Structure formats: structure tokens, C-alpha cells
């Protein structure tokens, strides 16, 4: 197992080296603006994000931006000097953001691929340090609109929150009020039996919405959420591809590539001299994935992921972010 992990690490390092080589080549061509992309580790997801940021520099771009990617935890003197010489830093993930803010306090940092709760924590620690961020969480109106698209007669949505996700209850409540959807919500205390807490919520709801929380919370509650939703025959809207695999009828989420592309756009706007400071951006692009078996067993066999995504995009009249993204990547299973 360790041997295979070592092999995987070597492959990742090889891939990263290739990327860096690619960036250097690019650097030779455009040397107007330098940006350091820092990663906390060789997590493939982060690499995907980084690759997405770099690859978004397509032809026809006027700005000359030079990206240099560095593993901040293992950075050497040259790397540090290179980061110091860059105009600003793009940090992928909460840990990399924390390291960049800590290690390079003079440099402006853009955080990408972080959860909203993690970003808020970083902003509290390093106020006014962050130039901007692209978060993972989907905006509350999008989530509730989706529930309404699934079931137009839907009037109540159940929600069990943990310590982190509970912070989004006001946003969700506000969105629900706008859409006329009642939120049946309750925060699960560590000593409580999740089944006993969940069952009345699900029993009283027409759909159940899952918000990401701490990993332990997610794992503990997922089984019972899916089981009880089956039992009470209500759809579960998850936040990850795996949730669909585990039995949720559908999930809505943004891929690393989508986040990377949106981060690149943010970098470019900064490079272009934007001055408006926005604390964070929700993902402009998302993916809806359906579990066909579940949807059939729950009687939602006519649902189509692509259609749902289009409808949802169409319903977002006022974008949540300053810049609208035209292109929407869709995917159905």
C-alpha cells in the first residue's frame, strides 16, 4: 500500500514538474505580470484547480500573466524568492491560503477552492489581507430554486446542520422566504442521536437539503439521511458526486476545473486593475448529477440533469457575482 502511495506521489510530482515546466515556457513568452500559485500539497484536486487556472490562459488574452506554482510546505529559498518577486499569490485550499498569509504578509493573496466557513475563519485571522476568494459552497437561492425545480409544489425543505453549516441558516431562511419554502431545520448536537433528530425533520419535509459540514458530521449523518429519505420517500439534494453514488437523488456542486477557471478570471480582473474588493465569490458554474435509480424509485423519473441546470441558470436572473459567466458546464449521469 505504502509502495503504491509512493508511486502515486512520484506520478503527481512528475505531473507537477510538467506543469511547472509548461508555466516556465509560458513565462518566457509573457513577462508582464507574475502570479505565484501556491499549493499546500500535491492533492490531485488542488492540482486540477491549479492546472485549470493556468490552462484558462487561452489565445487572444491581452494580459501577459506569468504563473508560477509552488508547494508552499516544501518551498526552498529560490521558491520563496520567486514568490516574493511575484505581484500576488493565488492560494489553493485553506491550508495554502493560511501558509501564504502567514509566510508572505506583504503579498496580496487570492484564495481559491475553500469552503465558506474556512474562508470566514481565515478572514477573521487575517483581516484585510485577502484580495478575494472563490468558495466551494453553492449560493442558498440556487439550492432552494433547485428544490422548487424538482418539485414545483414543494413548500418545505428539511435540513440538519452541524456547527459550521448552521451558519448558513440565515441565508437559506432568507432565500426560502423569497421562494415561499419553509425550512425545517435543526442543529445536531454531538450527544444527540442523529436518527432521532433527523426523522422528524425528514418526516415533515418534502425534500431534504444537505449542506457540507465537517467531514465527521457528513459521514455520520449521510447514511441516516439517505435511509430515512427513502423511508419517507423524499428526495435528497446532496453537495457532491459521492452523495449521488451513496443514494441521494441528485447533487449540485462545482468541479475543480470550474473553480480554477473562475479563479483565473478573478486574477485577470486584478491584473487588469480592478479596484472593487469582493470578499468572496460563489461559484458561477456548477454541475447537477442525478441518481437515475433513486429518481425512478421516488417517482422523479422525468427529471433531467441538463435541463435542470439550464432552468436553474435561467432562473438566476441576477447573478450572485459581479461578472456573469456565460458558459455553463453541465453534466448528467
Amino acid at each position, binding site marked *: 500500500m505504502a509502495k503504491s502511495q509512493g508511486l502515486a506521489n512520484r506520478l503527481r510530482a512528475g505531473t507537477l514538474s510538467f506543469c511547472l515546466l509548461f508555466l516556465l515556457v509560458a513565462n518566457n513568452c509573457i513577462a508582464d505580470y507574475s502570479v505565484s500559485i501556491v499549493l*499546500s500539497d500535491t*492533492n490531485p*484536486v488542488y492540482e486540477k484547480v491549479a492546472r485549470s487556472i493556468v490552462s484558462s490562459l487561452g489565445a487572444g488574452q491581452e494580459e501577459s500573466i506569468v504563473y508560477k506554482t509552488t508547494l508552499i510546505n516544501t518551498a526552498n529559498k529560490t521558491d520563496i524568492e520567486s514568490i516574493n518577486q511575484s505581484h500576488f499569490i493565488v492560494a489553493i*485550499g*485553506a*491550508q495554502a491560503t493560511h501558509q501564504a498569509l502567514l509566510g508572505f504578509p506583504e503579498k496580496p493573496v487570492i484564495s481559491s477552492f*475553500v*469552503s465558506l*466557513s*474556512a474562508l470566514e475563519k481565515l478572514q477573521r485571522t487575517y483581516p484585510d489581507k485577502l484580495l478575494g476568494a472563490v468558495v*466551494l459552497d453553492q449560493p442558498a437561492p440556487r439550492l432552494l430554486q433547485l428544490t422548487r425545480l424538482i418539485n414545483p409544489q414543494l413548500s418545505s425543505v428539511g435540513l440538519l446542520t452541524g456547527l*459550521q453549516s448552521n451558519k448558513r441558516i440565515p441565508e437559506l431562511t432568507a432565500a426560502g422566504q423569497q421562494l415561499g419554502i419553509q425550512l425545517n431545520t435543526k442543529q445536531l448536537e454531538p450527544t444527540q*442521536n442523529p*436518527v*432521532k433528530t433527523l426523522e422528524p425533520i425528514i418526516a415533515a419535509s418534502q425534500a431534504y437539503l*444537505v449542506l*457540507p459540514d*465537517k*467531514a*465527521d458530521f*457528513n*459521514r*455520520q449523518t*449521510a*447514511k*441516516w439521511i*439517505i*435511509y430515512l429519505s427513502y423511508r419517507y420517500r423524499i428526495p435528497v439534494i*446532496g453537495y*457532491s*458526486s*459521492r*452523495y449521488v453514488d*451513496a443514494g*441521494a437523488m441528485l447533487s449540485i*456542486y462545482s468541479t475543480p476545473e470550474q473553480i480554477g477557471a473562475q479563479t483565473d478570471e478573478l486574477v485577470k480582473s486584478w491584473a487588469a486593475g480592478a479596484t472593487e474588493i469582493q470578499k468572496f465569490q460563489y461559484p458561477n458554474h456548477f454541475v447537477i448529477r442525478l441518481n437515475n435509480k433513486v429518481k425512478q424509485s421516488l417517482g422523479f423519473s422525468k427529471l433531467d440533469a441538463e435541463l435542470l441546470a439550464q432552468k436553474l441558470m435561467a432562473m438566476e436572473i441576477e447573478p450572485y457575482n459581479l461578472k456573469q459567466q456565460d458558459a455553463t458546464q453541465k453534466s448528467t449521469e
Partner: protein
Amino acid sequence: MTHMNILFSKGWKIRHKVLILAIIPLFLATSLLTGYFTWIRQADTEAFFVRQGSHMANALASVSELYMFSGDRQALLALSNATLKEQDVIAINFLNPDGTVLSHTGTIIGVTPSFKPVNYQKGMWIFQQPITYSTLEVDDFDYNDDPDSVKLQGTVQLGWVQLVFSETRLKNQQQAILVTGAGIAGAGLVLALLMAISFTRGISRPLSKLSKTVEQLESGNLSARAPELNGDEFKILALGLNRMAEKIEQASAQMQQRVDEATLQLKGTLGDLELRNQQLEQTGTELMAADQAKDEFLARMSHELRTPLTSILGYSELIERLGLSEQQLEFNQIIRQSSDLLLSVINDLLDFSKLRSNAIELELRPFQLEECLENIIAMHAHSAFEKGLELVLLIESDVPTGVIGDSLRFSQIINNLVSNAIKFTDQGEVVLLVSRSGLSQSEVQLNIRVKDSGIGLKAEDQEGLFTEFSQADSSITRRFGGSGLGLVIARKLAELMGGDVYLESTWQKGTEAVCHIQLSVEKQDQICSEMPDNDDMVIIYDRHPWALRELRHTVLKWTTHIVTVNSLSSLNHRLSQHEIDYSCVIVGLSAQETENEHLASILLQIRGLCDLPIMLASATARLPLQENSIEWNKYQPIDFISKPHRSRLFLEKLSRLLLGTHMTLHAPTQELKHDTAYDKAAWNPAEPLSAATGKDKPLLGCRILIAEDNDFNRGLITHILQEAGAIVVETTNGREAIEASQKHQLDMVLLDLNMPELDGYSTARELRNQQSAKETPIIAISAIAPNSKSLSTQLDIFDAVLAKPIDQQKFIKTLSGYWSAPLTMAKTTPESGPLFQVSEQALQAEILRLTEKIKVAAAHMKPDQIRYYAHQLKGILSPKKYTGLREISLKLESYPDDMSIEQTTELIAHMEWFVGDLTRDN
């Protein structure tokens, strides 16, 4: 394998064997297969049962996860009730992780939780599965990117589900399988048995038919044929058997023909054989008869040769007394020597034949060695004297006196050696040296060396002497005679006694015959220890060194103060010097010195020097000086003993001489009178008899009737009575006695008790009834002990009973007690009177006659005659002198009718030996 062999070796028929061989594998295969598949099915059923239970428990564990997680007892109960409807399920228990019951449904409670997934308890199968809670991974990635987040364990134990199954259905199923299996097995076995029987019949029936045919053929029915059989092999076998039977029939017919022919030939041969057998039987009978005749011939010849020889010897001795001329005496001497030689040859031949047939068995009896050796020496004293030889016996002081062995055979060996030594020695000496080499305290090896100064032997001739019928050369036979068996017999006898005989000889220098014999020691008693040691100084003269040594050796038992001289001059010198106070002079005279003048000269010389007691030891049997003659008396104190001397007698005489008791030559003590042959030779028996003539006759004029069937006894008694002055009427039995009593006036009657026709008792009774003999003293003479109780009442009729053999003094004394002589007749006491002595030759002749009678009676197996003659024999034998022969006669006297031939032969052989000993003594 062994059991199979045993099974098939019990004589079972092949049908049974084939049946067993067929059925055993079928039975085993059926049993094994059925058993195996039954077992498999049962195991499968059980495995299915277990799998079903396990699956149910697994499913229930999965299903109940939520209820266990939420602690929903109602839901669990509902789940349990649903599960309880399943087959075999009799109870469902949901247990907390600590084993406490959370929910129970069904009939069985209180089942102990176990970590085993499957457990069997008291007829119940318990399936137990853990109920675990597992989390679900739903994150695509770590949304919070939080390195500090703690991951939950994969599974959490929520409790246990326990399914209790009843085994009833399982058991029923298994039982049904078993019954089915048994049924199949039974059916299979029956089928197998039927098949085996069918198979067996298919084999055994043809075999049985073939066997019957073979049996018929065996029993002689050669026309028997095997029937046609099915099956190739049996068909071939039957055909083969039939062909073989035809051949056998043909061969048998041919054989029968040959047998008939051969039988005819055989009958002829048998006839011849029978004829030859008859001839062989006849030959065998003739051979047996010849063998018997040979034995009888030997016995008869022994008797017939000995009897006339005894007569010849006796009469030649008597002839010598008739005043013959020198030539006649010489001829007579030749006759005696020839007779002696012939007797010796006969005895040797008899002994040799006994040794050859191992018929000699040694007796083990105590005997006095010294006395025995002295007897042997004494026997040869005369012949040695006649040849002028010194015959010397020297016994080492450590040689035991009392030994145990066969004295007769021992004597025979030594006798032979001494006899040979004397025979082959013309001058000088023959010395018998006896020493010992101890084996142990109880056994001794005697080393007897007989040295002679004779002609000696050449080395090449020495060993030949031990070959039968062989002598050194033929000239010896011509010169010395003999059978040539003496040394052979001696050696064989010595070997029987665990010893050997061999010769050490140098030609012209003499021979030394060495004999080693092993004997048991009876006790250690030394002659010298019986003699008082004293200070007497004795001077011994003998010119012969060996003789001087012998005398000294004997005198040493009396005193240790001894001076020896080997010349007369030395003797005279010693005596004339008076330096030593001698007590006695012992003069040893060789044969050459025994002439009257020479003897008188020696005695005069001694008397001229001293008046010491003189003990003469002379090689002659009789001194030239007349006893009690004036010449003899002038040398007093003097006494005489013959050489070679008996040490005991010598010492007795010496002691008497020294003590002043004068011993006369013609008046020996009673003890001496009963001594050996040599003494008899010394004391001429004729002299006392003649001396008694004309002296006191205590029975003078007494008319005595004697009835005695034994001629010898009768003659002896008659002679004694006549010498005592009696007038004797002789009869041979009781009848004659009665008749004689009627014819003669009798003063006394002597009756033998055992007589033919009319015994002593009956005769006495009849005599008592006669008026003429009513008061006549009747005296019985019997060989039976007079104090025998059985006879005491019958003997009352007699006035006295006298025992045989006759004690003359007692006899005369007893008879004179019943005789009152006329006043004119002087009556003297019988003690002072002379004694009648029967000639030894006459006595031996009578012994020979009676023993021959006994042998003939034994040869014809006539016990009456054996007892009769044995009784007669016993009557004339002195217990002291003829001990061995008397013992034999005692045994023969009580000879039982049913005694075996072997025992009889043994007794007769013993008797013959003793008789032979008598003749050899002569």
C-alpha cells in the same frame, strides 16, 4: 491375510469360498458407498441448515442496524416477529454490546451469548451475528481542508442478534436420509447377495460336478466322465478331465496288467524270501543256540577245566608227601607249575572277556590298603623265594591305610604287576613302592611302582605288551608261559579305576611297572600311631639294601633308635663294641642265607657277642632248624618271621620278643592261625594233624551217626570225629540215618538240617519216636544261625545245635558234653587237644564243586538247586576268611524264584571272581 488363510483352511467348500469372496467386496462397497453418501447428505443438510441460519442472522443484523442504532424496541420486536415465522426459528434475541438482552422474541430465552457465529446447545442451533454501524463516505474532497479533523472508525458495535433454531427439522431430515440410505444399502446388499449366489452357483455347480467326477476317479471308477458344462473354461476343464480320465483308465489297465505280472513275480520272490527267511531263522536259531552253547561251554569249561586242575594241584601236592624221588619230585613240580599256569590263563581269559563286554562293575568297599598289599606280596613270597629274589614292600608313611574301592580288582592289578616282575626277574629284587599324590582329603591317587632287576624290555616291545595276547617276543611265551593278557587286564582295570598302567624299562637293566589308581580315603589311621614309641635301640642286619630298608621302615613304627648294617662283619663289629645298649638284633636273611649251616653260623656269631633277643626275618617259608630242637633252643630268646613280612605281625612278634614272651614256631595264636595264605604256607597244616594222632581222644569209643548230604562236610566231620576217637557211621540223608539207627547201636546222632528226601527236623522226630534212639543225643548241624527265632521252636527237638562252618574246638567240646566215656578212657578237655585242620586244597576243591553246581543250576534257572547248593557252600565258608564268597552264598541262598537273568548272571560272576581269587591265591 492370516485370518483369510484360517478361514479358507477350515475345509470349506469352494461354493462357500466363492460366495464369501463375491459377497464381501459387494457388501463392503455397498456399505461404504451408502454410508459415505448418507453421511455426505447429512453433512450437506446440516451445512445448509447452518448456512441458512447464518444468512438469516446476517440479514437480520443488517436490517436491525437502524433499530439497534436508534434503540427502537418496537421495530426490533416487529422484525423479530416477522423472522419468527421462518422455519426452525424458535427465538430471536437482540443483545446489547455488553450481552444484556435488549429484545427477546420466541420460546427460548436466556441463551448464553457466544462469540462463535454458530453454536450448538441442548438441541438448539444458535446463530449469532454482531450488529455494527458503518459510516458512509459522501465527500468528494475535504471541503474544510482541515488537517485536524478526526475520522470516525469504520464500524461501531451496536449489539448482537441471536437466532435460535430448533434442530427438530434437521434431525428429521437427517433421520430420513439415514432411513433412505439404510433402505438403499439393504436393497443393495440383497441385490449383491442375489448376484453373489448367482455368481457362486455359476462357478460352484460346474466345479462340484467336476469334483464328483474326480472323486469317482479317485475311488477307482475310472469310467466316470464329467458332464457337458456351460462356459468356455469349465467346458475346457471338463473335456481335459475326461481326456485325462481316459488316459488314466488306459494307463490303469496297462498298469493293472503289469501289476498282475509283477504280482506273479513277487509271489515267486516272496516264496523264495520266505524260504530264505526260514533258513535265516533256522540259522539264527542255530547261531543263538551256538552262542548259548558257547556261553554254556565257557561256563562248563571253566568248571571242567578248573575242577580237574584243582584235583591235579591237590593231588600233586599230596604226591609230594609220599616220599618221591628227586626226579619224581621234579616232574611233580612241573605238573604243578603247568597247572598253575593253565589256571592263570583260564582266569585271564575269563577276566578279559568280561572286560571286553564291560561286564565288570567295580565295587566300592572299604579295605585296608596295607593289608591288601601285604597279602599280594605274601602270595608271591614263595615264588620269589624259589627264584632267590628279594621281594620288598615299601609303603610311604603318608599313604592312607583305609581306602574305599574294589579291593579284589585292585589286588588283581598289583598281583599281575608283581607276578610279571617276579616272572621276568632271575636275580636281584622285586620292589613294590607305594606312594601317594593327594587329589583331595577324600580322594587319593596311589602311585604304585613295581621295580624289578630283571631282563628289561626293549623300547619297541613295551607298548606291545598292552596289546591283547601279545608278549615281548614269542620266546617269552615259550619260556614264561602266560596268556599275554595280564597287563591288558591290569591296564583296563586301572582305567576303570581312573588310573593307568605303563612300563618304564631299560633292556637288560630291569623294568619299572607304574600304576596310578584313584581311590577314596576312608580314614586317616597310621599304624605307627597305634604303637607306643619307646627308647629301644634296635640293630638291623640285612645284606640286601631294599630288604634292609623295608625292615627299617617297619621297625620305625616301633622305635626311632635304629642302627642298620648290611654286612655281617659290621654287625659283629657293632655288637662287639658294646658302645650302644641294643635291645634287639634283627637279622634279615636272604634266600641264599637260609641254609642251615649259614644260619647256624650267623646265630652263633651273634650269640658269641650278646644274648640280645634275635628276630630272624627269613626269605624262606620254613627255617632249616627244627622248632623246639635243642639247636634252636640254644639261641633263645629268638623268634622268626618270614620275608616279606607283615608289618603288624612283625611288630607284634617284636614286641613279644622284647617283652620276654617267647613265641614258638608251631604254636601260633588263634589270630595268627586265621591269617592269609602265606601263613598257611608257614604253618604246615599237616603237622598239627599228625601231632594230634595218638594224643587225647575225648570221644574215644563214642558211636556217632552222622547224616550230611554234603560229601565234603560229611568227610570233614567224620575225620574230626575219628581223630577224636569216635566211631562214625556215615549217611547222606535222613532216610539213610533212620535206617542206620535201626542197624547200629548209637551213642550220638549228628544231623544236618537241610538234606534231601528227609530233612534234619523230620529225621530227629522219627528218631525220637524210635525206642532205640529215644534217649540218644541228637545234635543239629546247620548253616542257619542257631539264634534265629523262626527256628527256635523247631530246634527244641535237638539236644544241641552247632553252626557251620565247624569250629573244631567248640564242636568237640559240645559233643564231649554228651558223651560219657568208659572209666578206662582218659578224658581230656578239648581245649588242650590238637585240632583237626582240613587241607586248604580239599576245602577249595569242595568250594569249587559247590560253586560249579550253583552255576549249572543258574544256567538252567533252577532256583531250588541254587538255594540248596548255596546253603551247602555257606556251611563250609569261614566268615572271616571267605567273606566275599560267603556273602554271595548268603544272597544265593535266598535266591528268589523271579530273579532276573541279569541279576543272576551278576551274582554268578561275582561268585566266579571270588572263586577265581581262591585259585589265583594258589
